């Protein structure tokens, strides 16, 4: 159980080298296989997630959610995907065509790139960067550009407003997000995600860094454009914000990307604060799945409970509350660490 996936990978490399490939080429082929696996994981996850989101919202709202297609409506998402795939791809005449058409592609590519560094189990990491966290944050912030592309390219005022909101919001929340993670980095002493997981062998960082966890969680919600921070989409005000003009598969790609981001950010949350793949009994890859899904459920729960915050409150909340708090937490962590070292407890 525990080493299924790593064993399979090892076997593949061995087999390729047995065929006469050099070690470098064998690794390259493995990388491609891993990418394909990630795409598969992402797709499966999104299918499950959309179903889950609808079920959760249904249950919260005293409804049953999808319940017609398959057991408990499990095939509903697949039917929806087929519907979206076969829909006409409308490109409005006044759009900036190339930007309009490529925005969803960029978005999905950026989202999938996030998975490169996430430790999906013991030794199950595509690339174990020594600056993995930095990579994650910087790639994650690229999605802002994709939303801006979508909003700008659509040549629609709603889309434009949504895109501008997205940019303002995501840039402002990136900072508290990064700073709140720095506390964890200080304790773990590494930007390498696998190191951070190992550092939580005895105690989860959520207990050492509760303030950082809260600020991270809030900032991550804003980063993901999920309720109550779904400003770029804000269906009550902006109809569908940056996605207003999109139809069919392009629109679906945006959703795919959003849910991909959701999984990635939740997985990072589990990695940084909840001990990553570590856990008793079950195999490591199962543990991270369980943790990630629990965190995602909380995201959904929040989305379906809270009203949307106002744009200016959102900005002032980020700059006036979240940023100072996360900075204070950083300073506190620093002092705490020094204190512990001075006392000789570390």
């Amino acid at each position, binding site marked *: 159980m525990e080493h299924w996936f790593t064993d399979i990978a090892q076997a593949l490399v061995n087999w390729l080298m047995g065929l006469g490939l050099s070690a470098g080429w064998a690794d390259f082929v493995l990388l491609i296989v891993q990418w394909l696996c990630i795409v598969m994981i992402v797709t499966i996850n999104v299918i499950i997630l959309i179903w889950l989101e609808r079920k959760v919202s249904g249950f919260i*709202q*005293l409804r049953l959610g999808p319940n017609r297609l398959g057991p408990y409506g499990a095939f509903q998402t697949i039917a929806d995907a087929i519907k979206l795939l076969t829909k006409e791809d409308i490109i409005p005449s006044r759009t900036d065509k190339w930007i309009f058409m490529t925005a969803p592609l960029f978005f999905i590519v950026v989202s999938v790139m996030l998975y490169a560094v996430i430790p999906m189990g013991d030794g199950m990491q595509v690339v174990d960067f020594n600056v993995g966290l930095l990579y994650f944050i910087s790639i994650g912030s690229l999605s802002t550009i994709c939303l801006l592309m979508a909003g700008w390219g659509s040549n629609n005022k*709603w889309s434009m407003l949504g895109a501008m909101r997205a940019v303002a919001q995501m840039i402002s929340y990136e900072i508290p997000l990064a700073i709140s993670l720095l506390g964890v980095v200080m304790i773990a002493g590494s930007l390498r995600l696998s190191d951070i997981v190992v550092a939580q062998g005895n105690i989860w960082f959520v207990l050492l860094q509760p303030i950082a966890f809260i600020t991270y969680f809030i900032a991550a919600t804003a980063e993901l454009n999920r309720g109550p921070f*779904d400003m770029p989409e804000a269906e*009550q005000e902006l109809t569908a914000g940056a996605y207003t003009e999109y139809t069919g598969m392009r629109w679906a790609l945006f959703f795919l990307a959003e849910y991909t981001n959701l999984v990635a950010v939740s997985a990072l949350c589990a990695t940084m604060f909840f001990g990553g793949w570590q856990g008793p009994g079950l195999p490591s890859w199962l543990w991270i799945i369980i943790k990630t899904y629990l965190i995602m459920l909380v995201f959904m729960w929040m989305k379906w409970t809270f*009203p*949307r915050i106002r*744009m*200016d409150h959102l900005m002032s909340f980020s700059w006036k509350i979240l940023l100072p708090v996360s900075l204070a937490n950083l300073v506190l962590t620093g002092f705490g660490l020094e204190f512990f070292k001075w006392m000789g407890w570390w």
Partner: protein
Amino acid sequence: MLQTDQYIINIGPQHPSTHGGLHVEALMDGENVVDAIVHLGYVHRSIEKIAESRTYPQFVPYASRLDYLASHLPTLGYCQAVEKMMGIEVPERAEYLRVIMAEFSRISSHLIFIGSMAIDLGATTGLIYCLRDRERIMDMFEMTSGQRMIASYMRIGGIAEDVPETFYAAARSFLDDLPQMIDEYNGLITGNEILQCRIKGVGTLSAEDAIAYGVTGPNLRACGIDYDIRKAEPYGIYDRFEFDVPLGTKGDSWNRYIVRLEEIKESARIIEQALDALPQGDIRTKVPRVLKPESGWEIYHRIESSKGELGYYIVADGGNKPYRLHVRAPSFINLMVLPIISRGGKLQDIIANIATLDPVLGESDR
């Protein structure tokens, strides 16, 4: 200094949060609203013209369709206007049942208000809980009149049918559960800090402006003016009931919301008293089959609808059809202040303001 152009953004008529076909043309400066122009008429059905070719009793179902969220109230106002003009007395029992139905309508309309405000502010789930509870009122309407929303239950000279036995139990159990429901709204919606930030101090309307612009109903009372037609000029048997008029202080969206929430409780009080005092007897007086008010008779009758002062101005010409029927629609006149309270706010405040002014477009466009 950075200079940005102003631009126009069209909220509606097809838009997720415009309560029907409302079209607001907002002149924006970034996220700030410079001005808002309201365009109406997307639900215009020319009901006033229709009335001129329908007999007096035939207009009742059309009146139902004015404020379809509280359909007993516009029909009540219309029937009372005709009765007042003709000098028709309504039997006691019918009067009481009318009050019960009207107040249930008010509750159901306010529940929709709370729910739609929640959903307009992004809290989708709030709507569902309000609808769940409104459903019980709808069931009661179905029980009594046979229709859920557009009941056309009032008749000139009384009501259409007596209530069935099952109605009393349903009404009592609804009233018993009401405090619990309101607790839930308070927990989910009222108490939510994000929502409070969204509507507190937003869309403030001064008392002077409110009166000058003819704003009535909960929107006027939110400004702190104690003016409820049920108290000021009691119609029907409203002078027999004991109830308070909830008042706001600032006239902002938050006050408008709270006033309506409190009004639900007051309506429940009225219903309880009416149920206790409900006499037995006729539900409809004998009214001539063809109603012919004399030529030159005219009347302006107004009631406190869930949205405000709902008035009917009827001119008779001696025939069996009204010569002229004008509906003074509270939603129509309340919407006039939307630009005033939205100016200088944010885009999202327009949505909140529309939601808390609580217009129903069927009534405002007629």
